[in-house]
């Protein structure tokens, strides 16, 4: 399979800060814009169902228009379900089409996972089995996406809350293969790696030693919580010092990282508060030299 990846073009020589924005809070957006170079938006959270499909919320689009040239946009999906055997979500692709037609997107990304089976939403995100069948399918879809959109495409490692399915490849080998075959970049979510380490002893150092870190273009940071004895990927808190330290370690070894994104759920904003989010961005900027 030919490599069809696009190169991320940036004016920054070193990684810069990015933050999530999920719409409906212009005061927060204005404060974010004073602190970050990129705003990460998730199409699924700024859209609603309409006439059997879905469409982007006009108020959210108006807010994104207000950003102008004060920050660049990153699109980070949840609902593409690139790993579903029956195919990616056409509804999500239509949202992407609309976003690309309206805005200049620096790059876009999705989780290496599936959220839908047989057209039915799981209500959660599951990791892929690392088999040749899954690898071939994912690579074909990544190439199709890269052909369809004029911006680089990245895939992100997800948390493994359930036991791994039998497979041929290690986590790192699977990501290396996808990147090599398609030319796509990677997002490393270091909080997800920490969750896996806490939950079942995932060997982060071995993973980073095996992963081709030159493919990593973005790092995701988040803070979460334990639930039912598991550390879960609910992005509801500021980042733990251990997460920031792990991000610093990855950054020192991954030469192509362009952005470090602090992620938090819209639902967590009232409890976190704007001040805590902005304080967190200031802390990450200082500690990670962003």
């Amino acid at each position, binding site marked *: 399979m030919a490599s069809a990846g696009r190169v991320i073009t940036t004016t920054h020589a070193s990684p810069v800060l990015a933050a999530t924005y999920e719409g409906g809070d212009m005061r927060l957006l204005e404060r974010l814009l004073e602190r970050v170079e990129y705003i990460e938006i998730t199409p*699924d959270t700024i859209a609603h169902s309409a006439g059997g499909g879905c469409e982007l919320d006009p108020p959210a689009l108006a807010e994104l228009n207000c950003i102008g040239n004060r920050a660049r946009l990153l699109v980070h999906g949840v609902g593409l379900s690139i790993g579903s055997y029956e195919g990616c979500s056409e509804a999500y692709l239509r949202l992407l089409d609309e976003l690309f037609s309206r805005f200049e997107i620096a790059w876009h990304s999705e989780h290496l996972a*599936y959220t839908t089976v*047989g057209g039915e939403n799981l*209500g*959660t995100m*599951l990791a892929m*089995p690392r088999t040749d*069948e899954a690898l071939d399918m994912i690579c074909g879809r990544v190439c199709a996406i890269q052909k369809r959109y004029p911006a680089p495409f990245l895939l992100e490692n997800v948390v493994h809350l359930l036991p791994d399915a039998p497979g041929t490849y290690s986590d790192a080998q699977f990501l290396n293969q996808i990147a090599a075959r398609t030319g796509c970049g990677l997002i490393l979510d270091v909080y997800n790696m920490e969750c896996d380490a806490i939950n079942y002893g995932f060997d982060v150092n071995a993973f980073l030693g095996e992963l081709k870190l030159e493919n990593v273009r973005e790092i995701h940071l988040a803070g979460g919580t334990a*639930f039912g*004895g598991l550390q879960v990927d609910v992005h509801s808190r500021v980042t733990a010092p251990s997460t920031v330290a792990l991000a610093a370690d990855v950054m020192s070894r991954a030469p192509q990282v362009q952005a470090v994104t602090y992620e938090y759920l819209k639902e967590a904003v009232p409890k976190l508060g704007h001040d805590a989010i902005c304080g967190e961005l200031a802390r990450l900027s200082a500690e990670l030299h962003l």
Partner: protein
Amino acid sequence: MSALARLQDGMLHLIKGRPMVANDPYLQCVERSRELAVVREVAIWWRTYHVERTCFHTARLMNRLGLLGRAVAEFYSRAAASPFAEEVGRQFVAEMTGHSDPLVASMAQFEAALLKVREGSARRYGIEWDRNPNDVFRALEKGGELPESEGMPCYYIEVAADIPDLVCCTRFA
């Protein structure tokens, strides 16, 4: 069916808590795992969160009656719920319009009508209640006792865009 399709179909059944048909060692391992219960619980927690925000009145009543948790869990297991939060609420409230408890059914019919009118429906919706709906809302608001059923439909709520505040309640003669 490919190995990937068989695996994902099996995972769908496990996540949704549906009976398993596959005799696959990996799926059996997941079925026995403590993690599966946590994943299901988190997924149902999110569904409940969305239901509480989209159909506030129905969720509050069902919470008060101790019916919400089980109803959402059953809804999650059975229904092909939308990935969109507000649509999940609409789907849930639509299901609850046929609830065996007449008070829950009336409240869900009322809320489903309200959602439709607020989204631009020009229809008029009529909902019968077997007790005074104003007393029901007051009890939910203030934490007092819910009124007893009068044993038959005795109040009628109309919901329509051309009614001031969208809602009008009358007692049957």
